[in-house]
């Protein structure tokens, strides 16, 4: 979609670090854009380098109290007009503030764009700028890492499938424009409308899922592992808050891995339940166990569940050694089934593994909150330095999805107005380009390739 203005916005502080978050806005219109959502002093009349207390609103709804610092060009970090909004460091509040600024004409900053602008406006020197190049390139490597993970993830799968639907649809419509002399069937308008509507619904679902889990982009994975019947599926279910994996007390029920999206402390994580680890001759089960280790390989955090109502045996030691020797992962030891232990007198001495440990009952929910805290803390420690990057990537994806949605709506209106394919396709291609920003691909050749491979073309 078109850049609305050249005023950019992004969260300047890391997620979860400290109690105050700073949202930075820079560009010619930054002061007037913030002023539109600020209840308090008229910021457009404020001097540079001044701080103002007030409230931020989204239409009539109040978002948060905030301290707003106004900077006037050239006396700001970027050298442009700029505003810094200090608010409470809560993911939902920050997200709301960023999105209300987007709605009022700002756009999300590209990675490193504040620094880039500072450089372009001669606020920093060349050696610093050289460093930015490297930051951007390493950030893009990080983004690549993220997108590789997402490639296998459900978000990317979904976006790709929507993209494919759109490419198919556009191909049909282009076919009618570029190959109308051929002996081919034309796609009826009703079918086009249906397909657009289906894609709109798909995107809406994605947007909703994003609204629920605002920050982390689903790139982080947690694997739950342990011996059979340690309660892995039960833990997954209680974390998800719904019956998902099949739970029985028959060991080895989960023969395959089960993967779910988990919203935890405002982070969207991928969590997988795996087949229990034991040394088995059963072919199916062996295969399942190999998949478990594959999961561990991919995971960012491993939740190792131990049934603390029973003693530790050789198999536990075996698991410990394998994790220690072959996998370099953050491991949390979860002692399960406190409900079966009398007065917390656990049989298994889980502390002996010298790993972060917590005891819970997946069945009663006892200790579950603490476990969640612990996971969040681990992630924050591990990914603190990525804070800005992850929120930006994420918000940009939301923006792309919103633009896609808008373009599809426009396509629908055009169709209903009786516009020809050449007009409708403009909107559909805009939608496709926006989706391409998420998956990082372009599409013109895709459409022609699709036409050539799918239809008998050529006189």
């Amino acid at each position, binding site marked *: 979609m*078109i850049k609305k203005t050249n005023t950019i916005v992004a969260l300047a502080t890391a997620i979860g670090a400290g109690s105050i978050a700073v949202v930075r806005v820079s560009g010619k219109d930054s002061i007037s854009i913030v002023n539109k959502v600020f209840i308090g002093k008229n910021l457009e009349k404020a001097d540079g380098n001044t701080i103002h207390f007030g409230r931020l609103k989204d239409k009539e709804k109040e978002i948060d109290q905030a301290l707003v610092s106004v900077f006037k060009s050239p006396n700001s970090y970027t050298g442009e007009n700029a505003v810094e909004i200090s608010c409470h460091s809560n993911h939902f509040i920050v997200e709301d503030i960023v999105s209300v600024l987007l709605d009022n004409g700002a756009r999300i900053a590209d990675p490193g764009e504040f620094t880039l602008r500072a450089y372009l406006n001669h606020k920093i020197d060349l050696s610093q*700028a050289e460093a930015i190049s490297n930051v951007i390139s390493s950030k893009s490597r990080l983004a690549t890492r993220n997108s590789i993970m997402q490639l296998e993830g459900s978000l990317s799968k979904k976006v790709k499938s929507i993209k494919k639907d759109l490419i198919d649809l556009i191909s049909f419509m282009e076919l009618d424009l570029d190959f109308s002399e051929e002996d081919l069937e034309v796609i009826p308008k009703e079918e086009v409308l249906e397909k657009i509507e289906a894609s709109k619904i798909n995107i809406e679902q994605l947007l909703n899922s994003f609204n629920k889990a605002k920050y982390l982009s689903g790139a982080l994975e947690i694997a739950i592992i342990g011996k059979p019947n340690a309660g892995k599926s039960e833990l997954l279910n209680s974390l998800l808050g719904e019956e998902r994996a099949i739970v029985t007390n028959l060991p080895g029920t989960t023969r395959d891995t089960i993967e779910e999206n988990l919203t935890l402390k405002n982070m969207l994580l991928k969590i997988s339940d795996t087949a229990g680890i034991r040394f088995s001759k059963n072919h199916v089960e062996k295969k399942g166990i190999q998949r478990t280790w594959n999961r561990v390989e991919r995971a960012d955090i491993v939740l190792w569940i131990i049934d603390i109502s029973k003693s530790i045996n050789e198999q536990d030691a075996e698991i410990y050694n394998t994790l220690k020797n072959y996998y370099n992962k953050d491991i949390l030891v979860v002692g399960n089934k406190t409900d079966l232990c009398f007065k917390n007198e656990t049989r298994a001495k889980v502390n002996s593994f010298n790993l972060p440990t917590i005891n819970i009952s997946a069945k009663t929910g006892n200790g579950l909150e603490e476990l969640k805290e612990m996971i969040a803390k681990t992630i924050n420690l591990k990914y603190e330095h990525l804070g800005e990057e992850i929120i930006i990537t994420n918000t940009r994806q939301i923006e792309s999805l919103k633009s896609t949605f808008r373009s599809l709506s426009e396509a629908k209106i055009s169709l209903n107005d009786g*516009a*020809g394919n050449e007009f409708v396709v*403009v909107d559909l291609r*805009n939608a496709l380009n926006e989706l391409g920003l998420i998956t990082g691909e372009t599409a013109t050749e895709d459409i022609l390739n699709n036409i050539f491979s799918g239809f008998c073309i050529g*006189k």
Partner: protein
Amino acid sequence: MANRVPRETNIMTDFDIIVVGGGHAGIEAASAAARMGCRVALITMNLNKIGLMSCNPAIGGLAKGQLVKEIDALGGEMGKIIDESGIHFKMLNKSKGPAVWSPRAQADRQLYAVVAKNRLENISNLALIRGSVNGIIVNSKKVSGVTLEDSGPIYSKSVILTTGTFLNGLIHIGLKSIKSGRAGDKTATGITESLVDQGFKAGRLKTGTPPRLDKNTIDFAVLEEQLPDNPPTPFSFSTESIENKPIPCYIGHTNNKTHEILQEGFQQSPMFTGRIKSIGPRYCPSIEDKINRFSDRERHQLFLEPEGYENREIYLNGFSTSLPEDIQVRAIKTIPGLAKAEIVRLGYAVEYDFFPPYQLFYSLETKKIIGLFFAGQINGTSGYEEAAAQGLISGINAAAKINKLKGFRLKRSEAYIGVLIDDLINKSTLEPYRMFTSRAEFRLFLRQDNADIRLFEHAKKYGLLLKEDIRRVNEKKQAVNSLNKHVKVNNISARKFNEIYDEISSKIEQPQRLDAIIKRPEVNLAELLKVTQNDDYPLDAIKEVEYNIKYEGYLKRNLELINKFKENENRIISKHINYKAINALSLEARDKLNQIQPESLGQASRISGVSPADISVLMIYLEREKYNSNVPRET
């Protein structure tokens, strides 16, 4: 032009520009350069085969028709030649919006070649020379002429190669292969080799053509007749009306029996047996490829197109093949109407050399050798129109260089020709490239009927138009401006409107401004002007104004994209950069950027393999360079 006398040709004369090849690219290259005042020689193997249509006897078609109109708007020949030699004109996509209308016409093949040659002969500073070029003369990375097979060298400041399918051309019919650039003609050897010696990368492509049938052996009564438009719409903006008598085409179909016979020949197919390894165009597949890939189709549509009034040959469009002779003969007889059909010329496939076009600048001058230009199939394209467009651009640029003018480049947002050349240079296509309207992201603006207005300023600047062309376009522009004002201040009364649009459009109560009421799809501006007694506006001006108002909303959305596009196009990269040294770029981007050396950030972003992150890095690099120094461009 008629009062100009052909120049005496003398082999030893120095020329400004030598054009090698007399096909559709060569014609435009030679005539544009000559019109711009250069002394031009066009060298071809056979002077009677200038402008010969080696394949389909037709000009235009979807997206290609737009190219022809643009060539015409830039003073080119193609539109004028087809208007004089066409025998069946049709505006395609007429049921759709004006942006995707495309003119197409069948030509009298012999007449087309005669008209083409006559037109060239009437250009005063253009010499037509018969000869076979077998080498390019290069001195210290600068071209200085060509060598001929039977005589000495000819010297020039620039050379434009438009060699078509002739570079090491190899024809295949079944498992037989013949060294030839076109059935009945020689092949051209030596040119590829001399360029590869200079460090050029060459590749090989394939194309094919269907058999020609004897008109007198066909039972047209059982075929479906296809009539041309009446009256025909000319291609050239300067043509008042088409004089030739129209003749029909015919539609037929293959059937299962045809497919069975063709399948018998698969084991002798040069394609399926792997004798031909080069890639052919997917949009123009052979009949064997169609039945092989789409085996569930019970029939394929064929067009029987006459090659002229006197010519007894019928072009069997849709039946391109390289299967053996006996298979072709037997298969054709199974087609209703063709039971007794005799083949006059067999279908065949032809392989030829091309030079991947990333080796060119936008001017179509090679990056390796100064003054050497490539146009047409040598750049991996397919189609007369694509070739002619490149010929024109290379001719203009070669002449501009000699006349010390700035290079001529059309943007993607201005013309299909801009899309064509931008795609060629930046996307490494692996198959013969053909234009489609879907390749032009701004096609809503690139209509066939507004090419004259769109390209007028360019054409004027390079001196490509005749006085009467300039007067005509100026008049059209004035009419458009005045009508644009007219519709904004004039109303139609409710009574008059309701009278003409009774039952067709919902009634109005109050007078309505013209520019408001014509937004209704069913309302027609020409009609409104007639009833309001303002019918002195020419129809093409009315259409232009009506389109821009009717589709304003959609055009706006596309216009936003154009503006964004221009932003990056205007970020010029004005010097040679060693991209390999920019470590922050991805490896693929480093290679591609180094190879292509883009002229703007916009161009860089269209190169396949260059990601948005690479563009950010590049932007920073460029800003730093700008800040640091004023080093002049090295190229």
